[in-house]
């Protein structure tokens, strides 16, 4: 009896190993694509948008291409992100990893991707990610060096403002963006009226708003993660400060605008890789409607950028029969993909998108309209 039981258990164990253990056996049409993004913490707004975009792209995979995915939470720290990526890459033979929007976390993850030789598909704007010689980083929205041009040009040229206040947060994203905006403003011959870097978890913005008002600034630039931006918008309006505010893209996310009243958004504009919530081409509108139906929330440019990046990778899996990470890297490096929002092609550094929109709110709704589109040429300031 005992011998029979032992044999049964051994047999069960062997079956288990064959079924689930060891290196996963991947058929030509089934690949592993772990999603490594901030699901919790102060980046949950941005993380939710990009996670939705990635999941939707995977669910939209064409027939014959099967993607196995798991979601790994990077939380809010670089060490958390590095750990999450290691766990993801040790859970199977990933061909690519849709990864965090947070620059600080991407900086920690990039060397791991290079070590494992697995491409990361990101929507982080931090420019140095694709300018540090790492061939495994691919970005499906304009880097900050480009998109900040849209933010600044809109305020200076379209709104006619001359005395900006520049407020950034103390993350790598905030610091990187600040450097770009200082350079762009200097090139445009504009002096900064007031400048401050704040902690991303700062919650009382009344002292900051007071300082901005006392500086005589006529427009407020915000470049930071969504939570402090929403706080600044809300508290500035609550304190009667109605200066135009031109923000970075995460303020345009629906879960960020949900934190403020539509009236608070009057005079608020934001740069974004695209604006699916505002409609646009039939392709964008169709995608936006499906997104709304799938997730029950308004779409945003971050979700669409992540969707297109992952969809490009999936397209290349089907088209080029990609089964390994190295094949994926080569395909992303050389391929062109006509996505929902735009056409993607790497510039050799891994930056695959080079145009942007500025959207504005009219104070009656949380849905913005496209105020200005900037072509790739217009995002290069000579």
């Amino acid at each position, binding site marked *: 009896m005992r011998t029979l039981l032992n044999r049964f258990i051994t047999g069960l164990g062997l079956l288990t190993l064959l079924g689930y253990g060891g290196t996963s056996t991947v058929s030509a049409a089934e690949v592993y694509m772990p999603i490594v993004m901030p699901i*919790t913490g102060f980046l949950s707004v941005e993380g939710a948008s990009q996670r939705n975009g990635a999941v939707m792209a995977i669910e939209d995979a064409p027939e014959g291409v099967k993607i196995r995915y798991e979601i790994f939470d990077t939380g809010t720290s670089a060490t958390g992100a590095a750990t999450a990526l290691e766990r993801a890459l040790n859970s199977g033979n990933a061909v690519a990893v849709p990864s965090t929007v947070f620059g600080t976390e991407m900086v920690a993850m990039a060397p791991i991707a290079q070590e494992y030789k697995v491409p990361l598909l990101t929507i982080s704007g931090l420019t140095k990610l694709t300018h540090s010689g790492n061939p495994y980083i691919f970005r499906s929205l304009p880097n900050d060096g480009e998109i900040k041009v849209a933010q600044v040009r809109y305020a200076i040229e379209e709104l006619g403002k001359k005395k900006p206040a520049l407020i950034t947060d103390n993350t790598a994203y905030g610091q990187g963006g600040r450097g770009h905006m200082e350079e762009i403003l200097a090139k445009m011959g504009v002096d900064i009226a007031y400048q401050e870097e704040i902690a991303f978890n700062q919650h009382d913005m009344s002292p900051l708003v*007071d300082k901005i008002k006392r500086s005589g600034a006529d427009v407020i630039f915000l470049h930071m993660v969504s*939570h402090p931006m929403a706080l600044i918008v*809300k508290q500035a309006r609550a*304190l009667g400060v109605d200066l135009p505010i031109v923000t970075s893209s995460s303020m345009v996310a629906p879960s960020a605008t949900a*934190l403020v009243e539509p009236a608070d958004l009057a005079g608020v504009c934001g740069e974004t890789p695209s604006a699916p919530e505002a409609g646009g081409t039939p392709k964008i509108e169709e995608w936006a409607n499906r997104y709304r139906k799938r997730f029950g929330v308004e779409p945003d440019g971050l979700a669409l950028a992540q969707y297109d990046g992952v969809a490009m990778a999936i397209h290349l899996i089907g088209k080029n029969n990609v089964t390994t990470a190295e094949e994926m890297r080569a395909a992303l490096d050389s391929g062109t993909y006509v996505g929902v929002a735009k056409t993607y092609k790497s510039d050799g550094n891994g930056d695959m998108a080079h145009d942007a929109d500025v959207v504005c709110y009219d104070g009656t709704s949380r849905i913005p309209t496209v105020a200005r589109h900037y072509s790739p040429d217009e995002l290069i300031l000579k």
Partner: protein
Amino acid sequence: MSFVQLLFNGFALGMAYALVALGFVLVLNAVNAVNFAQGDLVMAGGYLGVALAYVLPIPAILMLPVVLAAVAVIGLVLSWLAYFPIMRRPPAAVFISTIAFGVILQNGYQLVFGPEAHAVRPLFSSGVWEFGELIISKQATAIIATAAVLMAIQYHVMERTQFGRRLRATAQNRNMAAALGIPVRRMIAITFAAGAALAGAAGLMLGNQFFVHPIGGVNLIITAYIAAVIGGWGSLAGAVLGAMLIALFQVIVSAYVSYTAATAMLYLVVLLVLFFRPQGLLGQGEQRRV
């Protein structure tokens, strides 16, 4: 924005902090241990405001009675789960158990509401009143008024009613209170409920301007702790004073120097208080019989 306006906003922030600190000290006095879930109870009030707004899109002031009652119930649960089973253990055990309760609350918020932040409706309305150059926030005014009423009620109950005397007696000497026939366990449970209710009210007030999110209470417990240290460990009036000083200090120094300087200087002040007046500004010094 004028200095007066800045001061007014700082005062409003201080009043909300004072509710948190009052609740913190109430429990501290009753059980001689720190309730580290106090900040998470603030978030409970905020989240209740968010949830009620889905059902009834009314001003938050009308939600206040429900929030007070509901968070008070959470406070009772806290006392049953995190205090009474270990009440004969050292205070450090309560410290740990309330941290655990707080983590459970944080994860509960995330499970129900998701990880992203939410905003609570204004107490009455948003917007400002303009008096020439002076701009006064309606929400800040409402916070000051509402918090003042709650503090007045708390003071009246604690100082002018028999019930309040029983609560204070329990806090001062539990054994003697029991010997006099005061139901000590019930008084302690009610103290937890009252402390939680005050925290919940603060959450409803702060959640409009500062939003609520699962770990939003973490900084608030530190604020309450520092308020109690500055004002006087165990002093209710000291807790209010300490909270007001923290808010005004932070707002004014941040506005005229920087956020970093404000934080650094605040902790320097805490050290100075501990060094020169360890009993706090309104606390009573310890005496030893020679």
